[in-house]
């Protein structure tokens, strides 16, 4: 009996050093993790100078499946990527292809060129997700990646905050990011090039994808939580893109406003703004309304950190389905049903008309609402090349082309077909542009 107890104690003591002192170096799963982290070199098209150019970037990624799926950041690899080259932990290089991307969470999924891998008999391993919801501030974590091109760099730190919230965050290149998730904050050194690499616990489990750091500050790095990354990864494997729903409400925290709205604390979410022309607006939701429940599920948006998950409930509803908002307006309770539409990015498709020296982007519904345009017709100029017809005509980035040769311009596709006929027979082109809602006419003369 006593011996048994001593044995049990001894067992605990034997275990204790493992929990307290087992560094990642003594741990096989950590080694496995290191072997799953890759360097990603990307050649991407850019359209912002009036012509198509190629830009090059370096980032990190982590192999997450046996089939060679690699999670990285959306700002590392985008659909504009023309070539993706992965350097495995064993220094072998192999091409990869984009599977899908999701700028809302700043995540992208690429896959190793499996034929090439098989042909060359290359070996790789993959990492496992950990649970990001049980992380606590102070917990030790490691960042692995390619900071400033330095492959296989491991840095160490702690979780500084497990649910960091950024208000109304615009991410890279004007794309929206962070509406549907909070972030892990860490003091593990994260530098440019770490992007897309994993944040891991000492047992080698991936708890986040390192995404951004504050430039010019010390040790303020941020990662997308693994639970978000896992969802996004499987959704992208399934259908290459993530479909989300949009109703057009901008939530705000209720903190300090409970008295004014005559509410119990920890109940309801404030509607700060309703996008003009959105489904919510058409259904009659108003700024200042308090949403008490969404499809019968009570919501609590007291603090800013609680808002992304609520937005995610709305986003996760199938597009075209009705959502029942139970709201409080003044002293009355109402139920308003809103039929969702598909969530669309602000950033439309881009293209460069090289003979004109003109880069444009399709006007999205979001931009049309933001800029109070009459509709989402037309294309927005994002760049011009000096001394080419567009720049000589006097158009500027930010201008919206609303008509070409006195015909209304619907979208980029229509402009592309006009351009084709220009290429075969260069002629003067009359543009109607809107700059800060001022309409003017510009003529492009062939060079």
């Amino acid at each position, binding site marked *: 009996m006593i011996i048994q107890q001593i044995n049990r104690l001894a067992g605990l003591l034997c275990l204790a050093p493992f929990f307290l002192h087992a560094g990642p170096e003594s741990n096989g799963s950590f080694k496995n993790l290191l072997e799953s982290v890759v360097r990603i070199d990307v050649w991407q098209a850019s359209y912002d100078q009036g012509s198509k150019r190629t830009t090059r970037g370096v980032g990190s990624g982590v192999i997450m499946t046996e089939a060679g799926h690699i999670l990285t950041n959306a700002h590392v690899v985008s659909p504009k990527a023309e070539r993706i080259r992965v350097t495995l932990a064993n220094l072998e290089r192999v091409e990869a292809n984009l599977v899908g991307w999701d700028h809302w969470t700043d995540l992208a999924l690429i896959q190793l060129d499996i034929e090439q891998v098989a042909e060359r008999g290359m070996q790789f391993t993959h990492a496992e997700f950990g649970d990001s919801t049980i992380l606590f501030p102070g917990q030790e974590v490691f960042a692995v990646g390619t900071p400033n091109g330095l492959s296989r760099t491991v840095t160490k730190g702690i979780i500084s905050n497990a649910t960091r919230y950024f208000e109304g965050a615009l991410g890279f290149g004007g794309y929206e990011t962070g509406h549907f998730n909070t972030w892990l904050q860490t003091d593990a050194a994260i530098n440019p090039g770490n992007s897309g690499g994993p944040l891991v616990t000492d047992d080698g489990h991936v708890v986040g994808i390192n995404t951004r750091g504050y430039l010019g500050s010390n040790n303020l790095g941020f990662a997308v939580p693994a639970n978000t990354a896992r969802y996004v990864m499987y959704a992208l494997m399934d259908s290459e893109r993530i479909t989300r729903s949009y109703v057009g409400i901008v939530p705000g925290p209720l903190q300090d406003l409970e008295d004014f709205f005559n509410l119990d604390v920890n109940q309801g979410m404030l509607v700060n703004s309703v996008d003009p022309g959105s489904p919510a607006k058409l259904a009659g939701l108003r*700024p200042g309304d308090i949403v008490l429940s969404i499809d019968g599920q009570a919501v609590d948006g007291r603090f800013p950190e609680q808002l992304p998950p609520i937005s995610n409930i709305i986003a996760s509803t199938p597009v075209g389905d009705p959502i029942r908002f139970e709201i409080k307006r003044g002293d009355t309770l109402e139920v308003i049903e809103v039929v969702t539409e598909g969530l669309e990015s602000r950033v439309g498709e881009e293209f460069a008309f090289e003979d004109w020296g003109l880069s444009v982007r399709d006007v999205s519904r979001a931009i049309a609402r933001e800029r109070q345009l009459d509709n989402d017709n037309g294309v927005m100029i994002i760049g011009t090349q000096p001394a080419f017809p567009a720049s000589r005509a006097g158009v500027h980035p930010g201008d919206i082309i609303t008509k070409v040769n006195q015909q209304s311009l619907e979208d980029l596709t229509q402009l592309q077909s006009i351009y084709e006929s220009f290429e075969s027979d260069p002629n003067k082109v*009359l543009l109607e542009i809107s700059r800060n*809602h001022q309409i003017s006419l*510009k*003529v492009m003369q062939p060079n």
Partner: protein
Amino acid sequence: MYRNTLILAASLIVGLASLSANEVDLSTLFEERIKSVVSVEFFIQKEIDRESRETIGLVLDDNGLIILAEGTVPSWTPVSKFEDFTVYIPGKDHKGYDAEYLGQDYLTGWDYIRVEEAALEEVMAIQNFEVAEPRLGESIWGIALLPKDYDFAPGLLKAYLGLTRDMPHRMHFTDQDIASPGAPIFNMHGDFIGWGNQGVPEDKIMYMGRESYSVGLVSPRGTRVFHDAADFLERAFRVPAMVTGSPRPWIGIAGMQPVDQDAAEFLGLENQGAVMISNVIEGGPAAAAGLLGRDIVTGVDGEPLPKFRPDSIVLREFEERLRKKSPGDTVTLAVVRGDGGAREELSFEVGQAPTHLRDAPREYFSDLGFSVRAFTLFDAIGRRVLSLDYTGVITQFVRPNSSTASAGLLPGDWIQEIDGIPVNTYDDAIHLITTITEDPSREEFVLLISRNNETQVLRVKIG
């Protein structure tokens, strides 16, 4: 040979004689003519800051009417904020004379003051001098004033006339600084030939190390551009009847853009000017007459708009033709329809402009640290409300670290609701805010504001 030399000598003597006569003359002319110029100081009292401004005035008549240098009195600042206009006689160590602000003419944008009677002996109206038209290459001179610590001592600048252009008003350009902005320019006979315009940036290239930058430099105390005297005098006596709220003509259009030469040619509008009307204000006279956004105006009252270079000048010409009207007059616009190019003539009655930004009522609530002002058409256009049917008030000012500042309120925020009650008019807003400030038991209130086309609920904690 001998004869030739003699003629040469004689002509030399004549030359010398005329030169010395001019020299004597110029200093006398200068002494007489500096009396038409004064320096003017005034203050702008804002919610918590006070600014001082200095400008130059030209005495227009024998009763002390003075016109101030162009662009030196802000056109958007309410008249009630201007304080203590003081007139100083250049070069005299004197405490100055009081003057009264008479307002700004909406056609020219020129501002007027009237100085107290005691100053009249020391000044001389510009009207008392002959007026002449300067010729290209002619030597001319003007007056410049030094800063206040020199008692605004006057100096003489001399240059020659290098260029004359109608823009659409006649402007003259000299080879170097000819006068301070707002001061007069004369020819060698002492005839009044022009009024110093505000400085125009001169294009320069600046080298710093290996980098070069193109910069525009403006001299604050001298200008090379001046208004033609005859044209100036024709317009200089439009003194506003009221210091605020003079009824202005208005047809309700916004976003006018000149149609450039290439586009005009494309539309078959060669050899004339044209102006694109981006927006028509719902409820305004032009909208009622059927003018549409994207219509192109090619003429006013049967007269085509002339062609100007740069193209932007046609816009000034068009706006001036409209501003010369009085509310109630009839105007006829020749229009090329943006859709389809049909030509039409629209005749309608000119209306009276809604309250101008400068005249919009406003109030400062010092306890809460913010001021609001009435929503004007200017605010409406900026926020894409293209009608006269607008509500709410605009946040004019927020004192740093006040309770409204802590709540996140910013200048320019459009207040739409106060404590959940819609703010329809300026009076509504003042009533609601006053009720809050007068209730000692109030600890907080809530604003619904719109900023960049997004609304926000802000909670203001009082005290």
